């Protein structure tokens, strides 16, 4: 903590009593029948709950301040709201209540959703790059780098084949390579480390370390306590959408391991 203080402590992300709620249609009673749906619709003029819209309160009143140069790990059991929190910080999920303030545009590491399996790897590199907001020139400059990094062409000319012909490992490698090609102010990584074979894993860890150096602040969601310990100097522990603990990595991980180990 001492070394951060010298850094003049410039905040990059401020979460202020943040609440995120998902709404799920027609999941109220678990009855999917048409008559159930109709009777829900006919109960008009009532609130969400009565119309069969079920609310999932994924993040409940989380507040924290992240500073420049910090690498923050997010831990917690499955469904504790880690990924949701990341998306909210990135401004991708609207907040139900409270606000997130950020310096610049935080970005999630990941382009999976923009890629199309029916297109060639080549076109996906371009499409993914454009989707992340890179210019055509930037993509042209980095195209070879991305392909080399992914190692797709190590076993023949696969980049000109549709992505649906790739093995799942190859596709994951290409996705990571595209996502990691861009520089970010505030970078958020959602368990992206565990893709590909050992060789590729090592290469991606190096690349993440590089990205961290360039980025102001890094958030990392992971279930792997070792990779949190290796990369993060601060940890936020979420449980049931609430911030259970926030502090230096060692302290929080010790508590967390005690909690999960029991």
């Amino acid at each position, binding site marked *: *903590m001492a070394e951060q*203080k010298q850094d003049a*402590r*410039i*905040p*990059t*992300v*401020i*979460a*202020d009593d943040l609440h995120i709620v*998902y*709404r*799920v*249609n027609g999941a109220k009673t678990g009855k999917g029948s048409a008559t159930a749906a109709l009777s829900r619709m006919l109960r008009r003029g009532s609130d969400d709950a009565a119309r069969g819209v079920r609310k999932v309160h994924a993040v409940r009143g989380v*507040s*924290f*301040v992240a500073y420049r140069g910090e690498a923050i790990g997010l831990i917690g059991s499955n469904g504790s709201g880690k990924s949701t929190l990341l*998306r*909210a*910080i*990135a*401004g*991708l*999920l*609207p*907040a139900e209540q409270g*606000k*997130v*303030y*950020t*310096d610049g*545009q*935080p970005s*999630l590491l*990941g*382009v*999976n*959703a*923009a890629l*199309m*399996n*029916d*297109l060639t790897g080549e*076109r996906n590199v*371009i*499409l993914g790059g*454009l*989707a*992340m*907001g890179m*210019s055509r020139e930037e993509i042209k400059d980095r195209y070879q780098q991305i392909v080399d990094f992914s190692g797709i062409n190590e076993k023949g000319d696969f980049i000109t084949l*549709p992505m649906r012909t790739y093995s799942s490992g190859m596709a994951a490698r290409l996705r990571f390579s595209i996502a990691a090609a861009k520089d970010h102010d505030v970078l958020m990584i959602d368990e992206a480390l565990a893709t590909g074979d050992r060789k590729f894993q090592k290469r991606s860890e190096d690349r993440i370390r590089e990205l961290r150096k360039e980025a102001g602040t890094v958030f990392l969601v992971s279930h792997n306590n070792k990779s949190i310990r290796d990369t993060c100097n601060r940890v936020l522990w979420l449980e049931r959408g*609430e*911030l*259970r*603990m*926030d*502090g230096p990595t060692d302290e*929080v991980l010790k*508590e967390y391991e005690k909690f999960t180990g029991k």
Partner: protein
Amino acid sequence: MSETTHDATVAVSATAAPDEGLTAPELAAKHGLSVSGARPSLIEYVRQLWDRRHFILAFSRAKLTAQYSQAKLGQLWQVATPLLNAAVYFFIFGLLLEADRGMSREVYIPFLVTGVFVFTFTQSSVMAGVRAISGNLGLVRALHFPRASLPISFALQQLQQLLFSMIVLFAVAIGFGSYPDLSWALIVPVLALQFCFNTGLAMIMARAGAKTPDLAQLMPFVMRTWMYASGVMFSIPIFLKDKPDWIANLLQWNPAAIYMDLMRFSLIDGYGSENLPDHVWAVAGGWAVLFALGGFVYFWKAEERYGRG
């Protein structure tokens, strides 16, 4: 257990000594932080959208290519699908129902094919628009871009699809004795106006569909009603000549009928201006501007809310 939470939070905020005592909004203001996911101003939004023009184009072309990539005939279906479509309508309405009342065969067949293609352009833009946000939630929740990119991109995909259909349409027109002349140049402004109208409509449907995904089930019926009411396979003035004038006028001034009629007028030699309603170009332009601007503003108003599940 909740006490642990409390202690830990307090401990951390205590280390932020220089900024201590500031509330979150004050701290944010002091260091120039902005609210994440806030809606940009309209001008800023247009600028962001312009920056993403390459993405919009690439996305629409990728969608178009991906459509037939598993088929053996591949991209040939881009042309074969509209051709088969036109054949089906000709068989039912031209041969079985003889809806070609008041027109010679040389006029009716291009008339029908033009109607089907032009209406399909609007129809598929609407259907793609409804699902533009609700069907791409993964993309919306993963990446940053002005959300209007999606409905615009889908409308653009339909425009490119229509350009393939135009090849078929030109062949049909020439096959039935309408040869290229100066009036064919009018096709360009007609398509431009219809594209503006479609894009605006797609943006309206995208916002509506994001809030109410059920619209995807409902819209096919609305669109079919619209199609039958717009004179895709029959001439409105001839079929409705016994009815009061205002009905025919109303139907003829609806945007789908306007764009179909203008396209037929440009393309078919035997389809003269006597078939067009009054002030046709003004109405065509009015619909385009009204929907493009209105739809854009309407879509932008909910920008920060897209992606909520």
